[in-house]
């Protein structure tokens, strides 16, 4: 059984292969892809929230409906890309049926989340395919400014773009999404995950009190008004361990979404040899006493 992260990665990879085979450039237009494949795309009325999107099939005809109650183009593009995932990913026709082919029972389908994770990964991989996102990331620099410029390039939300940045970057970096004093989720880059002697942040943990994000979240207006700050904090404050290394911390309120996005970067980890040298130096200074 594949883990949740693998389902997501599997979906992303499938989308990236399609983008490559179609020879597309950024920004990827999921509406144009749907049109190319003769999939009707219909906007649901903005008057009711309901589901963010759905894929409908009658015989050999397909349609995607997407929600418009959130007046945000990146959100709508992501919704359509997610439904394209259900259309293009192998095995998804099975998700429609239960073992007796009665589709009302589908809600009991035990690994239903697997298909949703795959479709989410597909959407991220389609709109921000690694082979196009990575070179753009190299040019975009670091921190929230990089997230903003990539979001602009890909026409994706700051939230989705920041997650993708954490997945793709070669630098030690992390993004944290919080509401009030709680962490909703945290994505650490592969390089940061590989650092020894730090703790991984987890869902539902408290935002550390000494951080700019904690102070920012004390005032809900910061979130609502999409206030943006660039500050500094400390590796130890966020991730524990014994190293007090200054890092950059950019924070922005995500408006009506009600959450805060934090980007932690410019984390200059000492090379292992430097740390060893330092340890040896400390050792040499430490007075020794005869027993």
């Amino acid at each position: 059984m594949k883990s949740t992260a693998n389902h997501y990665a599997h979906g992303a990879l499938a989308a990236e292969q399609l983008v490559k085979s179609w020879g597309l450039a950024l920004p990827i237009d999921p509406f144009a892809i749907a049109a190319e494949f003769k999939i009707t795309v219909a906007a649901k009325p903005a008057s009711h929230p309901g589901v963010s999107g759905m894929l409908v099939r009658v015989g050999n005809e397909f349609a995607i409906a997407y929600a418009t109650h959130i007046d945000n183009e990146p959100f709508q593009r992501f919704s359509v890309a997610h439904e394209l995932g259900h259309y293009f990913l192998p095995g998804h026709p099975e998700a429609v049926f239960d073992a007796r082919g009665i589709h009302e029972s589908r809600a009991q389908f035990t690994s239903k989340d697997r298909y949703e994770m795959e479709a989410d990964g597909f959407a991220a991989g389609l709109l921000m395919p690694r082979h196009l996102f990575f070179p753009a990331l190299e040019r975009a620099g670091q921190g929230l400014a990089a997230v903003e410029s990539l979001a602009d390039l890909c026409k994706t939300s700051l939230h989705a773009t920041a997650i993708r940045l954490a997945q793709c970057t070669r630098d030690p970096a992390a993004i944290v999404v919080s509401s009030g004093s709680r962490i909703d989720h945290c994505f650490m880059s592969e390089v940061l995950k590989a650092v020894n002697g730090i703790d991984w942040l987890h869902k539902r943990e408290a935002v550390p009190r000494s951080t700019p994000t904690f102070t920012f979240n004390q005032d809900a207006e910061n979130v609502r008004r999409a206030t943006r700050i660039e500050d500094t904090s400390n590796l130890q404050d966020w991730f524990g361990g014994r190293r007090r290394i200054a890092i950059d911390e950019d924070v922005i309120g995500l408006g009506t979404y009600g959450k805060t996005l934090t980007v932690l970067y410019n984390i200059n980890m000492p090379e292992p040899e430097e740390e060893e040298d330092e340890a040896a130096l400390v050792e040499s200074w430490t007075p020794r006493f005869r027993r």
Partner: protein
Amino acid sequence: MQPSSPPSDSFPDRLRAAREYRGLSQGQLAEKAGLQPSAISHFETGARKPSFDNLRLLADTLDVTTDYLLGRVAEFKALAGADTLHRHYNALQDADRKFADDLITHLASKASKKR
């Protein structure tokens, strides 16, 4: 009552039956449908599972319905009911159901024009 086999299990057999009825080899079908040569044999042995896009391409190429390939109807050109696939099925509100019904009607008229 013993449940019948899941529709997805029928796909390999249905694909083979429709392909043989149309007198196509696996390679010929792959070529006509624009799929890789090995795709059809993988589908027919059940080694690879189809996407909706694959199903539609194969159904259009073989002039059958996706419902037939999925084992939901017995005849090549017959249609079964509509599918809607989305998150939180139980939470689907009346307004969404109504919107989905309208889409289904629209698609059904497109499907019937093609037949």
